[in-house]
């Protein structure tokens, strides 16, 4: 793109030089100023609490109860975080949370990806009904799902197990995962698959050799979104376990009995990975709400 222009730049050009950007009128400049003021205000409103809790989490213990609290502590300290991480059950519950999230990802993608593929590739009777069903499941309150499952889980012997928690997290993530995977597969042209079939692949082979590699980034995004859902879920994880707590369940059940710095450090600790993943999948955040694009 740039090479032709740079080549011609060495030659004297008959075209008058680009006059530069037009000066904005005072009115336009005022508008722009107001716009950026609004943007900065809103962005600080969103970011400031996160910043503050980060600061608080790395404030030395002796300054934690200082009054008035300075915006920036006198020194950087990991005591508060260390206290949180070393508290009884935190490390184990963090591990549990990771395990539950991984299990959830596995279950969700194994079930959602075929459905997303079907919705993206085929026009069939019942397709709209299925999509409606998926939408309706998003309406169910977590309490309604979790409470009745207690009995079922006892009977199945998976009460207080990580697998049990992963099962319900997968149920909660499934509708979203179906939506994301559908749009991911719609993004891979079906003609690519068809051409592979004319070149000698079976349908499965065409999927494996062409569609899957191209869909991989999108599927990774779906996995991360699933991770966030599972990592953040509190209610079901709390009522479906008694000893094998996930991190949010552990923090919640110890909330009333724990000192303020434990709460703050816990809040920060739970925030970090979620923020990281949201950053990685930011491209898909808007996409997945644009309705399921149908390929018609």
């Amino acid at each position: 793109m740039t090479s032709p222009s740079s080549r011609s730049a060495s030659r004297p050009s008959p075209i008058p030089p680009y006059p530069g950007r037009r000066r904005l009128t005072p009115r336009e400049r005022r508008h722009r100023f107001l716009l950026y003021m609004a943007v900065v205000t809103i962005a600080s409103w969103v970011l400031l609490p996160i910043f503050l809790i980060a600061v608080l989490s790395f404030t030395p213990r002796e300054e934690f109860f200082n009054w008035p609290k300075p915006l920036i502590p006198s020194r950087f300290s990991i005591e508060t975080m260390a206290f949180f991480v070393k508290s009884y059950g935190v490390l184990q519950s963090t591990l549990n949370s990771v395990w539950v999230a991984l299990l959830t990802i596995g279950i969700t993608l194994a079930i959602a990806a075929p459905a997303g593929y079907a919705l993206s590739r085929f026009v069939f009777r019942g397709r709209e009904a299925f999509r409606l069903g998926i939408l309706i499941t998003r309406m169910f309150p977590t309490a309604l799902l979790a409470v009745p499952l207690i009995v079922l889980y006892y009977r199945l012997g998976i009460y207080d197990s990580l697998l049990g928690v992963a099962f319900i997290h997968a149920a909660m993530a499934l509708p979203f995962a179906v939506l994301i995977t559908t749009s991911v597969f719609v993004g891979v042209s079906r003609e690519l698959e068809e051409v592979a079939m004319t070149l000698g692949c079976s349908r499965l082979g065409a999927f494996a050799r062409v569609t899957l590699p191209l869909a991989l980034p999108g599927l990774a995004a779906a996995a991360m979104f699933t991770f966030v859902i599972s990592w953040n879920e509190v209610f079901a994880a709390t009522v479906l376990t008694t000893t094998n707590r996930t991190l949010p369940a552990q923090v919640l059940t110890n909330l009333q009995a724990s000192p303020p710095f434990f709460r703050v450090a816990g809040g920060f600790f739970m925030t970090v990975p979620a923020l990281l993943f949201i950053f990685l999948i930011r491209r898909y955040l808007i996409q997945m709400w644009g309705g399921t694009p149908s390929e018609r």
Partner: protein
Amino acid sequence: MAEIRLENVWKVFGKVVAVKDVSLTIEDGEFLVLLGPSGCGKTTTLRCIAGLERVDGGRIFIGDRDVTELPPGKRGIGMVFQSYAVFPHMRVFDNIAFGLKMQRVPRSEIKRRVQAAAELLHIEDLLQRYPAQLSGGQRQRVAVARAIVLEPEVLLMDEPLSNLDALIRLQVRAELKRLHKQIGSTTVYVTHDQVEALSLGDRIAVMKDGEIVQVDDPTTVYENPADVFVGGFIGNPPMNFLPGEIAAPKKDGFLVLRAAGHEIPLPEEFVPALQDHVGKPVTVGIRAEHIEVVPEPTEGALPAQVLVVEPLGSHLLLTLEVGGETLKVMVDTDLRVEPNAEVWLRFDPAKIRFMDRETGKALLP
């Protein structure tokens, strides 16, 4: 190489009949164009031949093999898609080599054949690039190379030029014709562009509402359309149609055409075919270039009023009104006419086509 035979092929999507009882034989080495407006079933027909759609009825043969139940990869076809469908995650070389790898062709031979196919399409310098680094025309060549490297008996193309710029399209069109001469695969080519169809096809199959209306060589399709639809679809401007009547005013066996309040004597060779239609209403079809515009009243000429004059560079396109009907006429640029001027039209009687007013079907063979 092989001929393709479709026998009573049906394809139904829900309540829509996309392909309706189509039977067609495409000869070995032939370049057949499937032409029709969008939604006429031409692409579906092609996809049925490719095996991308399962037919709901009928059988498809390639050579002596009944391929109706075979998956696309086992039919011995190569296909070029409208979007080219070049794999974005593979280099050009791997794109072209894909089909050979599926067939487990030895590596050295893959290399040789990819090289040969690339040379045929003048893309041998692009083999190490990724598709994102290619222009539309280059991607199109990759798609074609990928299809022909397998030396398929049958080459299927679905509107391969429609995503290209007008200038490149002309160039690639000529190259496709050359390529077909060189490799000789039986080729089925789908397009909605009648100019493409006329320039490329050994024969053209015109489709409408899932049925084949006419299969003929380009000249015949142009000059002797099988019905009003074909005449109106092919040619730019489309064929003119006027209501008329065949009459036999004298007993000498000559016939005249009554149209727009005038009588045009018809050539002798039309007499046998039209004999039975004397006194019956017909639709008269005449191409824009077969009407002569004269500034003075002449024997057998129809008076007309000029409505619109459109200079097209090489010609003038006139829109005229004759006895309540609108006609399009091509004339040389040196004719000076203004809108609202009165002119006289002479039809070339040998080029007049007659259709049944009711069915629209052509009356002459």
